[in-house]
């Protein structure tokens, strides 16, 4: 049985430096995933719903995991999380909140809105590489992600 295409990981983060660092961290961990980026909540929902510039499914392959920053302009991660989990077509995509905030309120609220996990962004690159490696091991090797028929993906 041929292995499925590498899982698409969609990262929503308004900070260009953080996006770049995460990309480098994935490279360092030798994870061969298709890492895609959106810069804010509006962009994220357009991608997931295949609207506007994302109407071509080839440009917006369905992600297997979403990495979600909470503080973004136009529409923040909290709102986007609520929308994703309320949408029956999107609710089964695991959402990992990856944000600078360590506020108890943000942590609790994220889980209440059905985030799968919450990670506070580390400061050093080394720590980020470790986290990405752990994410890879857990979500992509250990865990079974929901299977989708090819036609939908």
């Amino acid at each position: 049985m041929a292995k499925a295409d590498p899982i698409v990981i969609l990262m929503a983060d308004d900070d260009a430096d953080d996006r770049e660092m995460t990309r480098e961290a994935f490279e360092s961990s030798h994870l061969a995933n298709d890492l895609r980026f959106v810069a804010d909540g509006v962009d994220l929902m357009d991608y997931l719903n295949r609207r506007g510039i994302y109407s071509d499914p080839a440009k917006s392959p369905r992600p297997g995991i979403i990495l979600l920053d909470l503080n973004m302009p136009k529409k923040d991660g909290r709102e986007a999380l609520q929308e994703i989990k309320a949408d029956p077509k999107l609710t089964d995509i695991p959402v990992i909140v990856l944000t600078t905030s360590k506020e108890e309120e943000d942590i609790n609220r994220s889980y209440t809105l059905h985030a799968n996990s919450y990670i506070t962004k580390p400061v050093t690159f080394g720590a980020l590489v470790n986290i990405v490696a752990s994410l890879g091991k857990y979500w992509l090797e250990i865990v079974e992600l929901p299977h989708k028929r090819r036609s939908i993906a």
Partner: protein
Amino acid sequence: MATHQRTHQQEQFRSMMAGVQDCAILLLTRDGIIDSWNAGAERMKGYRADDIIGKHFSIFYPKDAIDKGWPEFELKVAASEGRFEDEGWRVRKDGSLFWANVIITAWKNDAGDLAGFLKITRDITARREMELALRESEQRFRHLVTSVKDYAFILIDVTGHVRSWNPGAEHIKGYTEAEIIGKHFSVFYLPEAIEQGWPEHELEVARTEGRFEDEGWRVRKDGSRFWANVIITPFHDDTGKLRGFWKITRDLTQKKLAEEHLRRSNRELEQFASVAAHDLQEPLRKIQAFGDRLQTRAASVLDGQSKDYLERMLNSATRMRLLINDLLTFSRITTKAQPFVPIDLERIVKEVVSDLEVRILQTGGRVELYPLPVVEGDAVQMRQLFQNLIGNALKFRKPDEPPVVTLGATNLGSFVEVTVRDNGIGFEEVYLDRIFEVFQRLHSRQEYEGTGMGLAICKKIVERHGGSITAKSAPGGGATFIVKLPIEHKGGQNGES
């Protein structure tokens, strides 16, 4: 025969009258000369029969009454109308005054001519004093009720209809007395409250429990709302029967608006502070992140001095992040204050010690905990307080001596005194005030890390709880921090510092 009988009757009558003690009963001639006396008259006015018979009855009157011709006038009225009654001052033999009720009746002889007068006098000085006292008390009450403009004093009858009003009620509720008397007091309530039967319920509680007090929205005549503090008390007559209710209403709209304003203010401040903290942290995070990558990436090409500069830069960024966090904590003592609940200080301290376990082990130190009481407070803030105090005790240890931190409490009645004692480096007491100030430090950064906020945070927390904090110390002799906290807070505790 008849004359004899009548004379005998007259004699009997006279002797009866003579014996009466409580009234002065006198016979006067047509001209007002005193013709007879009795025991009551002697008792009341002080004269004996032989001193007074034959004198004019105006002797009993005060000088100004005589000058005005009162005695003669009274006789004239009695003669023409048959009867005169009055109340006024009379004079005793010793010159003292008493308040008298006097009835002068004309008596006619068989031929119908005026024969003389019967004067009956009662000393009602005591009764008059009571009446005056009562009137004065009523006047004082009325004065209080009418002059108080900020309180509505309303009397409602047992069925809930308004029976009396005062200027305060008009001021607060808008109705004039004429408009409101007789109406049911539920007209002051919101439609929803009336639907739910609140007015009747309040009277019922007042009736059964003796008092009802509440705060809530009420409606003015013009339909506008105000926030009222209402007390309803029943009153009963002497037989214990319910006569009605007193309703005292205060308009606390200003206070409520002020409270809401403060709450909103705190919310805005909190939002501002957390956004500011986040946005200020952002560039620091970048400095740390890229600085860290630079350290790794350029390790081979940087000389020792350059690496040192880089290290210092990164340390400063870290320090600034800690400072921003501390400032946020400081501001949140008021903006994120929780209402006071009973908390077990011993349990809080045990949790703090558990959090600090690593540090305690690293320093080879120990914490000795004696019993601590339960006080009313904010658990999160109490935790912060002890975390800072115990953390400091561990931090400022002597370099060659494992730190020992001792916590204990003394009961001072309504307050409790908690002490945190350490065996560390201590400080000069001359700096006692400084150490509790924001950003104040006694040591350079190289010697001891820290933001200079720890004790300022402790002080703010303690003061928000209505307590105080101070310390005793000597250089090289450790330090004892003394926190005084009230055990209970009755009212006035919701984050207003």
